């Protein structure tokens, strides 16, 4: 090392404790960390590519292999399938919140964040926001894939976009749950294996791929009203009409149920995740 190191003389950050400035820094720090998390996604494009390969394979598998054997009544199976695929895809996408946080903890970068004069909530907000943006991207890809294999939304663009919005909100709420998983896992590999047993049953014991009526009766209640199914049915109603759910319920019924779950999950899991972040040493 030959260059002289100039000694620090003045300290940086001016600090005012006003609520308005706190809110401003929370937004600014969240954006900084969201950008950092999204940059990481673009630096490892393989990860993003392969995270879309799996849902695409599911689309092809169910559309062309299993679909013919599944009776969805008046609705073409491809129209029944895609809303289910959307929810499955974003739910699996939310798992990346747990993996990302566990990795940051493991690598010690969160230690650095904790010693910086930044907003306390920005680490979790930046992570969940980045995963939301990532999910937007994945949903766009899945929409294109859906259209290519014959998916035809019937309720108009506004209604379709409302469905997409509902799914993304639901996925955002799930991200807060997976934040807790990530903050509790000893490392990122464990965070991943801890997350999948939670997502898997909710994805498959649901209305995602087959009509619930074909399941054993003791399973039907859970399979119809668990949060994944409720969101799938809401999305299905908004995209291809309420008749497609085969439940006789209205679009409003499912949308309200889905929003209620989303808000409920946020109310329960945001404070829990923040507490977990604070106490995790």
């Amino acid at each position, binding site marked *: 090392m030959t260059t002289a190191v100039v*000694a620090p003389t003045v*300290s940086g*950050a001016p600090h005012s404790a006003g609520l308005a400035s706190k809110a401003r820094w929370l937004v600014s720090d969240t954006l900084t960390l969201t950008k950092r998390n999204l940059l990481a996604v673009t*630096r490892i494009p393989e990860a993003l590519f392969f995270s879309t390969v799996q849902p695409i394979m599911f689309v092809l598998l169910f559309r062309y292999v299993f679909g013919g054997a599944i009776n969805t009544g008046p609705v073409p199976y491809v129209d029944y399938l895609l809303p289910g695929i959307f929810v499955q895809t974003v739910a699996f996408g939310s798992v990346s919140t747990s993996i990302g946080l566990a990795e940051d903890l493991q690598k010690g970068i969160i230690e650095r964040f904790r010693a910086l004069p930044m907003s306390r909530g920005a680490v979790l907000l930046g992570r969940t926001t980045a995963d939301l943006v990532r999910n937007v991207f994945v949903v766009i890809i899945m929409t294109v894939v859906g259209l290519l294999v014959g998916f035809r939304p019937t309720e108009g663009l506004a209604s379709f976009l409302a469905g997409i919005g509902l799914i993304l909100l639901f996925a955002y709420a799930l991200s807060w749950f997976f934040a807790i998983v990530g903050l509790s896992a000893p490392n990122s590999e464990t965070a991943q294996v801890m997350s999948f047993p939670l997502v898997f049953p909710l994805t498959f014991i649901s209305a995602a791929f087959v009509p619930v009526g074909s399941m054993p009766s003791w399973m039907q209640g859970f399979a119809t009203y668990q949060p994944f199914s409720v969101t799938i049915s809401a999305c299905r109603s908004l995209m291809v009409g309420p008749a497609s759910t085969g439940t006789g319920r209205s679009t409003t019924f499912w949308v309200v149920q889905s929003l209620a779950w989303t808000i409920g999950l946020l109310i329960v899991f945001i404070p829990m995740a923040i507490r977990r972040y604070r106490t995790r040493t």
Partner: protein
Amino acid sequence: MTIAIEVDNLEKVFKGKREVRALDGVSFAVQEGTVFGLLGPNGSGKTTAVRVLTTILRPDLGSARVLGNDVVKKAALVRSLIGLAGQYAAVDENLTGRENLQMVGKLNHLPNSFVATRAVELLDQFNLTEAGDRPLKTYSGGMRRRLDLAAALVARPTVLFLDEPTTGLDPQSRNDLWEVIEQLVGGGTTVLLTTQYLEEADRLASTLAVLDHGKVIAEGTSESLKADLGATVLEVGLPTIDDARRTGTVLDGLGPHVALVNGTLVEVTVDNGPQAAMVALRSLDAEGIVPTTFNLREPSLDDVFLSLTGHRTESEEPDEDDNLSPRQQRRKKRLADLEKALPVQTGEYA
């Protein structure tokens, strides 16, 4: 002189399968503009002390102040005054060097224009300009540590915490980093450095506290610590272990502490080297013992640690030899070899 860091009777207990008393009543003070070394083996509480001082961890008992600000009550203010570089090089793998520095600058709430210039300045100071726009995956271990240190300096902190800054680095990178730290201190920054390398503490720190099992077992300048021990170490090598034991008995009265018999090597700390050497040679001659080597040397901090704790600066985990200095590794091996050959007590003051 003003006090930059003040630590008052800190206690921290980690509850788990096994309760660990990481800090057990630690107190010390660091003068502004000096380097303070916290020296101790793995598990002695060094990192816990740094984590409390950098507001990452709340202490169970006691208090600490950085530039007069309580680290618990005024945590936010403290965070804006300090920089932290850790042993794990907490930088983002997926970003470039420049992006890492800019991120830390923004999170320090510094203006964008300042952050951009500061990043250029720091990359230059740490010889990373060329690598500045490459992702960190392509960096060597030494480059990562330099970037980690640079990141700690973005906001020009007046107090800098370095937690084992050179652990795991090769000798060349370690030397580079030492030079950087010395230059920083020359400019007036207060540095608290933790290390398990005695050589590092000796070279960088003007004042030291030796930690063992969460307690400060000695504090002072490295000179005063050495002076307490005795000014010089007399090291006598002998042809056989039996000769060594006899030599130990002969040399016991020479210094403030008893002689240490370590295999065929006998060490005794003495106040007046040449005089003691003459006495030692005469006594050995009278006993008919002929040494193979005979040396007078400065006591190392390793000697200090041994005389203070009765055990060496070894980590508690036996597999972490990589973290020991070459000297420690040699000693450890020597000791282990001997213990195999000889069931009787060795290595401790008899």
